[in-house]
């Protein structure tokens, strides 16, 4: 008799655990990051005099139905997409800075500037045309200032955002360390803490959008995380990352709290650091070079000519201010448009040779084998071209990520209809079985009365 009770008791426990898990699956059907769970059932055998007897079933661990390999692939895609999305956002800002809807962009400003000298060459003594030159020059200078300041602003905003990302990473590492404690405690008593594991997977997915990392599991079931080969999380201890910029012009470094330099390759943080250290400074350098070349070349020609009022040779732009952020028109020229040097000979008001020399600069390949206009066009188009390519890459990667997510959902997601139909199917089978049992009981009673 004992074996019968054992079978029934183990059956009741197993059935109860199974139903609880099904109910839990259903209740969490809409919970983000929840993995479907199932009970591992193990048969129990009892050995009597060498022969094995079935003693029912043992309800084992409740395990998560989840594909770890897909999780890793999703995290890799998250890293790539996190970086691409950050690039897309910043390149979008850069494109908006360089290309305006009104069309008054740097290439047009340069073109207008040199074209106004062409008009002056037709009538070198016309004071109104000289004022037009000053107006176009100021527009060009303002554009350089606005672009220079705009780049600095985007860089500053990106640096602030990097600080926020680092805070998020540090917070996620702490959260994962906390789940490690819970998982290790359960592991120590031979149990599986599925809720903490789900939470950990979700946190890892969030982390993977921000930074690239590798994970391993230690002997206690706890997760270890390495970033750029450096251990940043082990057991309950999580290191924190700090940004480091020694002075405004220098590059941003990332350090762990133990002082080690961190090398990040993928994810939002890596992209933003690359933007701060490489992409934006590169654009700033190109913009400064363009401003500096215009100042030098225009001044070189301008100082060889004369204005209407005297025989003094003057710079058109202030030669001490040669960056995009500082470029300025010479104060004398600004206050006396007559000092614009259209003539190549002092005292010859009708001479236009110097003005023609300045016009010639428009079509000369003075910088990188290209004209100023071509250089400006290349510079302002660069963010837009890169952005277009990034957007296309994002679409491809998003499709791949969606496919992986669907695969994971089909493995670990809870299908409410499936769970319900399963319950109803079982209910019908239980009812059928019970009816057969009742019929059988009458037959046993009849026979017992006869023997």
């Amino acid at each position, binding site marked *: 008799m004992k074996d019968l009770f054992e079978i029934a008791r183990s059956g009741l426990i197993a059935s109860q655990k199974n*139903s609880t898990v099904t109910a839990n699956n259903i209740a969490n059907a809409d919970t983000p990051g929840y993995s479907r769970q199932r009970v591992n059932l193990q048969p129990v055998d009892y050995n009597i005099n060498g022969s094995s007897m079935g003693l029912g079933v043992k309800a084992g661990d409740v395990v998560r139905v989840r594909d770890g390999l897909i999780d890793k692939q999703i995290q890799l895609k998250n890293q790539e997409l996190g970086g691409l999305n950050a690039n897309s956002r910043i390149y979008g800002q850069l494109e908006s800075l360089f290309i305006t809807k009104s069309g008054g962009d740097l290439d047009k400003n340069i073109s207008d500037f040199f074209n106004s000298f062409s008009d002056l060459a037709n009538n070198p003594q016309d004071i109104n045309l000289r004022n037009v030159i000053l107006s176009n020059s100021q527009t060009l200078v303002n554009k350089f200032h606005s672009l220079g300041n705009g780049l600095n602003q985007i860089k500053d905003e990106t640096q602030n955002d990097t600080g926020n990302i680092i805070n998020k990473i540090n917070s996620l590492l702490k959260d994962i360390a906390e789940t490690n404690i819970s998982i290790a405690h359960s592991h120590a008593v031979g149990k599986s803490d599925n809720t903490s594991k789900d939470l950990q997977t979700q946190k890892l997915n969030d982390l993977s959008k921000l930074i690239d990392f590798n994970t391993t599991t230690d002997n206690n079931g706890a997760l270890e995380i390495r970033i750029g080969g450096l251990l940043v999380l082990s057991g309950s201890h999580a290191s924190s990352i700090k940004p480091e910029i020694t002075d405004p012009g220098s590059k941003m470094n990332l350090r762990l709290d133990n002082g080690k330099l961190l090398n990040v390759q993928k994810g939002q943080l890596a992209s933003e650091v690359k933007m701060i250290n490489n992409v934006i400074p590169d654009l700033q350098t190109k913009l400064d070079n363009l401003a500096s070349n215009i100042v030098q070349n225009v001044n070189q020609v301008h100082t060889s000519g004369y204005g209407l009022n005297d025989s003094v040779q003057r710079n058109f732009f202030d030669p001490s201010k040669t960056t995009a952020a500082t470029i300025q028109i010479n104060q004398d020229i600004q206050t006396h448009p007559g000092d614009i040097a259209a003539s190549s000979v002092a005292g010859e008001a009708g001479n236009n040779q110097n003005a023609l020399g300045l016009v010639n600069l428009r079509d000369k390949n003075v910088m990188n084998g290209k004209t100023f206009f071509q250089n400006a066009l290349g510079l302002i188009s660069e963010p837009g071209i890169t952005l277009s390519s990034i957007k296309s890459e994002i679409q491809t990667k998003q499709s791949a990520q969606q496919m992986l997510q669907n695969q994971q959902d089909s493995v670990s997601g809870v299908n409410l209809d499936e769970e319900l139909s399963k319950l109803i199917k079982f209910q019908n089978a239980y009812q059928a079985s*019970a009816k057969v049992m009742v019929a059988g009981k009458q037959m046993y009673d009849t026979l017992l009365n006869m023997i």
Partner: protein
Amino acid sequence: MEQAVETNDLSLLLHSVENLIIGYDQADELLQSQIHAVIANDFEKLNDLISRQIDHYEELSGLESSFREQLSSAYQKVSPDNSKPKLAKLLQLYTGSTGRLNALRDDLLRKVNHVRILSLQLLDLLKYAQDLNVNTLRAVMATTEQHGVHYNQSGKTDGRSISNFSIDQKG
């Protein structure tokens, strides 16, 4: 009279009891398998075992009928009261050697009782599983608030809501 019973009827009864013992061994095995199928949530196996169980009951019912006929026939010869024939009584009234049939009767009695208890255990398990299922279904209905909409003859909704599920707890 008693000699007639021993030579003819008792040998037939002995054969019937042997068949019933084999039948109840099979019943025991089928019930054990059903318990395991319910515990393991193995729907396919449970359905298969239910149909096998029905077939087997028909077989057992046939064996039981022929046993009843043989017992009635033998019992008539030793007792005028044939309304409730019983093998144990027959063996008591018979003065000759009944060792083999007695042993088989004890064995059958033990096996039928075992199967009876096993079927009660399975019934308890099935009732428990059904109750859990009903509770789970109720919880699902409560959490998902899955209700259908009732449309009247003009094709408009009339405000009544209908549950998508109905639960037969009687089993």
